[in-house]
């Protein structure tokens, strides 16, 4: 992401800021550049929040549609990514609640072939995928705020300050959610996969 408070923006950040400015002015082609840059990130977060790629595609489409519609609300001097990710969380919350899948998402299941292909070993691959399934279930069992904090910090790799910005919360609050979430995840994972290792 923007990796908060860099004094000197990278060329990529400068280019993105320029695309965002053009898009705010109504340049649709520039906005396509914005989509190209963030589609993977948005769809990846949406898939983890909704538990399925099909729903994630719908969500991502809605996110970019809303983003273009309300782009004028974005301060062009600020990075677009936290804003897009916040919108992704909100859209997924809306979709998830409508479909009754916000609290209990259907786990994102990669095809077994993909897992095997990733490791080259059928046994290792499947074991790794089983472990992921358990981690997903443990993540699912967390309260919403802790789940979002863990997902953004530990799974997506955003810094605590960035998570706070995305969730419009304070760093202290987010830190507390992350800490509680990690302890609960450990407890759950110790219980369900502890004995297997």
């Amino acid at each position, binding site marked *: 992401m923007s990796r908060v408070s860099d004094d000197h923006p990278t060329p990529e950040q400068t280019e993105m800021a320029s695309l965002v400015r053009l898009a705010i002015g109504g340049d649709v082609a520039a906005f396509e550049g914005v989509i190209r840059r963030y589609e993977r990130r948005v769809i990846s977060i949406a898939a983890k929040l909704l538990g399925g790629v099909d729903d994630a595609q719908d969500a991502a*489409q809605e996110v*970019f549609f809303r983003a273009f519609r309300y782009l004028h609300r974005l301060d062009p001097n600020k990075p677009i990514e936290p804003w897009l990710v916040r919108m992704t969380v909100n859209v997924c919350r809306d979709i998830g609640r409508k479909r009754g899948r916000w609290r209990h998402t259907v786990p994102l299941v990669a095809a077994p072939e993909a897992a095997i292909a990733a490791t080259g070993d059928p046994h290792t691959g499947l074991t790794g995928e089983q*472990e992921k399934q358990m981690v997903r279930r443990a993540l699912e069992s967390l309260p919403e705020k802790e789940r979002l904090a863990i997902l953004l910090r530990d799974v997506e790799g955003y810094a605590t300050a960035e998570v706070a910005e995305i969730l419009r919360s304070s760093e202290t609050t987010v830190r507390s959610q992350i800490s509680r979430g*990690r302890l609960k995840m*450990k407890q759950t*994972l110790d219980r369900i996969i502890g004995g297997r290792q």
Partner: protein
Amino acid sequence: VTCGFPEKYLALHVEADLPLDEAFITEKHLAICEDCRQFVVQLAARQSSIKSLRQDAIHAAAYAGLRQCAMSRIRCSLENIGWMLRIERALFMAFRGRGYALAGLVLAAVVSVSLIAQITHSRAAVSATAGLQGNVLLRPHDYRQWVLAGTGEDMENAHSVDASESRASHKVYITPAAYRAYLKNGIFPEGTIMVLEQASGAAGTELMASVKDSRFEGGWGFFDFGRGDGQAKESAPEAGCRTCHDERAQTDHVFTQYYPALRPARAES
């Protein structure tokens, strides 16, 4: 952990999320506590499991249609932007400052609400006279849900209630929108309807009504439904209620001097 050191610090330490002062305390403690070091190792192993979700691969096919669909939807939407969004965009583009733009939006919202309130108010007045067709008024059926302006006891001087009749059986109702408008500014708005109900036991209920409408002489029309359930024609100017209302009613053909609910506004006006 058994030493009592806060686990929440350890949970943050494992990914270097602690602020400097707390990180310092935690590192100092870890240097002397084997139990906590073990806990951190276990936490790190779980963190590694959690991070494995980062590698969840999404097939390229999932992106294939996304951009195309999103762009197609965006292009279509350009032709159908609502007026509220247009105003919002114009304000944001003009001021380029969130505070100013929001202030502008609030102002626009206040003006809109005020306009809507006025439209609703005038609709309420119109709906009150919806039963009036030419000089014929349809008998209102919901008048008992209107505002009770006064009863027979209040109006014995106004409607010459017979001593043989129960005064309590006489009631005067006014349309709610007209009542609110009158209380506000002391003027009965166009479309005001007042109903006099005279219940006569088994014989049934007699109904009379007056409607403020500038088409009628003196600005008010008077209707006598009797016990009928249908409609009533406006009384001839020289007949019935009009003369008395012209002469004795204190405010615009209404006996506000007798109706308790209407007195406050009368006093103020």
